[in-house]
């Protein structure tokens, strides 16, 4: 697998890195993570209007630029590196993919332009009290009400659900799963922000009380759509995780050069050198997995997305956990303080390690693809 990134992608990366350094420095991350909304609406509009980031994978006919998951990967890697606080993953990766994969042209027409323009924030309401990321975990029932449906129940761990203009909801119509759209302000729709370990990424409880909802795509095809979306999502997440892991490694290396103990930089001690060499191996390996994942998500010839996705999720989650953990260890006592940003990456890593299923679960999925 050679790199999926071309020189143009690297040039996109450079400009994004400069942008986030300017508009999402650590001080901004810390300011926004302490707010309820969790993002800066001006910056959100700016990345839409000036950079077109929300519309990256939105087809041109709907006001987007019709790029692939490779370009999106560059964006997410840089956002992960900067811990950029915004409902980007929920809007662009989760909600947008649901719209695109559902094949529902009416819904696409209705929402995609708003998403691309930055006017619509999207979210996906999927998991329930069981905490399961699979089809069996979806128990909420949708009842038909003329042409429309009514939803009643509670969805948990909804990324950015509290600021979403559009909530895509998975619920059962009869025995099978269908997807629905619910707009902000719909009757019976309430959202409650939950306190999170990773304050840079907001999570809400979304409650439906006889809330009117519109079917998205074909009735009963919800799980087919959603399972594809989840495969795409773990690949997108991997890009974020690789960006975060590299940032944590860079931090650790940098600190090891300036921190003096026993008359020399601690980075001269072989224990730390070898620890970080091992971290680099994991980060580079995770990066390779991400490349393959992005290629598969973009429909490049070769390995199937459904087989690549679990590998990517397991590997990149583990690598980010390791890199962010060792970054704290290298920082010693300082790493245990709130003031040093090492914990922000660590919390993102730990939080994303269980988001969309843990490594063990994904490795078991991959086992199935190996003919086991």
């Amino acid at each position: 697998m050679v790199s999926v990134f071309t020189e143009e992608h690297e040039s996109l990366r450079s400009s994004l890195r400069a942008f986030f350094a300017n508009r999402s420095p650590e001080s901004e991350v810390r300011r926004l993570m302490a707010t309820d909304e969790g993002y800066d609406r001006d910056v959100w509009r700016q990345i839409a209007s000036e950079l077109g980031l929300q519309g990256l994978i939105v087809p041109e006919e709907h006001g987007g630029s019709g790029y692939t998951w490779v370009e999106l990967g560059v964006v997410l890697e840089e956002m992960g590196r900067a811990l950029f606080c915004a409902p980007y993953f929920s809007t662009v990766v989760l909600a947008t993919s649901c719209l695109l994969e559902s094949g529902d042209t009416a819904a696409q027409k209705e929402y995609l332009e708003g998403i691309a323009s930055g006017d619509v924030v999207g979210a996906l309401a999927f998991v329930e009290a069981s905490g399961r990321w699979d089809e069996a975990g979806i128990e909420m029932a949708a009842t038909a009400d003329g042409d429309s449906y009514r939803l009643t129940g509670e969805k948990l761990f909804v990324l950015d659900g509290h600021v979403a203009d559009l909530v895509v909801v998975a619920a059962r119509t009869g025995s099978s799963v269908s997807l629905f759209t619910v707009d902000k302000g719909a009757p019976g729709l309430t959202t409650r922000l939950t306190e999170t370990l990773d304050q840079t990424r907001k999570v809400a409880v979304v409650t439906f009380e006889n809330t009117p909802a519109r079917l998205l795509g074909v009735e009963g095809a919800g799980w087919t759509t959603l399972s594809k979306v989840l495969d795409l999502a773990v690949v997108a997440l991997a890009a974020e995780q690789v960006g975060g892991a590299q940032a944590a490694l860079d931090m650790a290396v940098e600190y090891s050069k300036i921190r003096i103990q026993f008359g020399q930089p601690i980075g001269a001690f072989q224990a730390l050198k070898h620890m970080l060499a091992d971290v680099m191996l994991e980060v580079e390996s995770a990066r390779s997995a991400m490349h393959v994942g992005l290629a598969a998500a973009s429909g490049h010839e070769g390995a199937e997305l459904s087989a690549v996705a679990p590998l990517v999720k397991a590997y990149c989650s583990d690598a980010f956990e390791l890199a962010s953990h060792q970054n704290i260890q290298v920082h010693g006592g300082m790493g245990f303080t709130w003031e040093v940003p090492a914990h922000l990456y660590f919390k993102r890593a730990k939080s994303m390690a269980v988001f969309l299923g843990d490594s063990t679960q994904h490795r078991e999925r991959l086992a199935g693809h190996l003919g086991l």
Partner: protein
Amino acid sequence: MDNDIAPDRLAEQVRDWLAENWRGVDDREWREKVVLAGWAAPTFPENAYGLGLSKSLAQVVGAEFTAVGAPRACQDLGPGVVDGWVRMIGLVVALHGLPALREQFVRDLLVGDADGGLALYSEPNAGSDLAGLQTRAVLDGDHWIVNGQKVWSSGPLDSTWGALLARTDEDVPKHQGISFFIVDLQQPGVEVRPIKQITGDSEFNEVFLTDVRVPVENVVGEINDGWAILQVALGAEREWLGEYLESIGRTEETAGDHRSALAPIADGAADLVRAARRAGRADDSAIRQTIVQLHTWRLVHEWTTERLSSASDSAQSQVAAAALGKLASSRILHSVGRFKAQMLGPEAMLYGPENRTGDDVNREMMNAFTNSVGGGTDQIQRNIISERLLGMPRAHTPDRGVPFRDIRKGTTQRNISG
């Protein structure tokens, strides 16, 4: 008092004294009486409110107090936090303090007048390399003037005193130019700020010292011999810490999760089994392997600590027990934290008082770093194990044998208070 005294004669003396003095009220008068009689710290020297008794004789004293429910005896042996200060700092002052300090400080500590204390050892640039500390004490008439910054001092913000390590000579190698002081913290120039930890809690402080004045009689031990004094204090701390943690363990026992040696093998695994059951994954053989591995690490850690702590070649074995045990703990705590978060699934994304389960698991997971980083990092423990236990050669470091003035030093100064 004579260490040759027969235990039963001593017991009788204590009983007689108690009969005459214990009125069932733990008031100031009582506390002073206990201290003046020498029962508060029987192992301390007689010139430091002690009786110079051996540990085993001191325990005879403690037993008699316990028998009648009288408090305040044998603080030099107890496991509580206040006892810790008596055992660590009280001890070195009792043994190495000048008369004025000894009489005032030890008395205040034992009577309970010395409110909270702070250990002012670590610095922003002296963590693993504690002897690289840069806080300076300069003599000015009958006072030392102290300037510097300390960190990772646990204790109350309004502590009245501190045990301070400061550099008093820069022209000798680093370990040889350090002195040990008792410093009054209730003076201008002392600023104590809580450090906000990654958990959001604040259990430690950073302390800024600006022209802080310390009377010459507050030096403990010889000038420039503070490193040796520190070793005595740290030795006592290690001993106390084990008992302290055990005493916490014992309160957890009531929660049904404690185990003692050669108890049924399964004891102590309940939290892991519960986590897997709750996740509905207790039948998954991969999860079962993890649980058994974690539980086995816990058991062998406990067995090794007991075995080495009770070994006859005590000095070497104590080092082994402490360093190996601390390293083992890191692996256990981090792995258990990771496992529990995994079992919790997406709830592990949550935190705060409204999300108790997520909060508990994440706090446990993050606090594991206090073991792998605090009190000597895992890396420092491996150095100790390889050099002191395995006898492997020390590597060259550029600061060995070099005057402190000429050593390359860190200059990072940052305020890490939350």
